[in-house]
């Protein structure tokens, strides 16, 4: 089922922003809708099209459901997508 693209169908994903990215986007968390079959790259484009979003890099580090993921990762409805600024723990 999830492999089959239904024309016009949409998924909803939750996007999370931390540290400097949170300051740029002005939000901790945004729910966005994407066409079914959308990739992480599409999610980044959608966020960068919003006010303040263009301050984000074009190819930020990303996580899907708490695991790092590459930008060609296909998203599913309900995924948690985190925009990960360069990390600085310790």
């Amino acid at each position, binding site marked *: 089922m999830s492999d089959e693209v239904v024309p016009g169908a949409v998924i909803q994903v939750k996007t999370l922003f931390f540290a400097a990215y949170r300051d740029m986007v002005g939000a901790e968390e945004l729910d966005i809708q994407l066409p079914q079959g959308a990739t992480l790259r599409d999610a980044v484009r959608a966020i960068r099209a919003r006010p303040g979003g263009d301050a984000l890099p074009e190819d930020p580090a990303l996580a899907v459901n708490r695991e790092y993921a590459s930008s060609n990762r296909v998203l599913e409805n309900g995924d948690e997508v985190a925009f990960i*600024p360069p990390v600085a723990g310790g």
Partner: protein
Amino acid sequence: MYCRITSTPIDPVELLRRVRTNEDGAVLLFTGAVRNHDAGRAVVGLTYDAYEAMAANKLEEICEEVSSRFEVGEIAIVHRVGELAVGDVSVAIAVASPHRDAAYKASRELIERLKREVPIWKRERYTNGDETWLEGFSPQAPKTD
């Protein structure tokens, strides 16, 4: 294995107690603390932010990988989040091991991987009131998905 993100002060002694067994000849404890200076600027404190659920998972994953690569016993890692003052412990890593060589190597690998892979950030607060998110490491995405 004990990996935690915490908003309360870290007690390094508790970590030492957690990891040591009678099999172990060596225990190595690394603690990172907030310095009063950085890159020539006077610092009053650091504010740590984390993607907490992912950070805890990532710490466990790193601990498991380091455990499998080196002959070590128990490992404990705690990283603090929130507002820290100069001198506060931000991270503590305890590694017990039958032999010291493995403890040193494992401890060093744990802190290096923590700094490069775990989604934690810090904002430096200066004496003049300025604040800034510190530059960090871009984590590597997996090659395939």
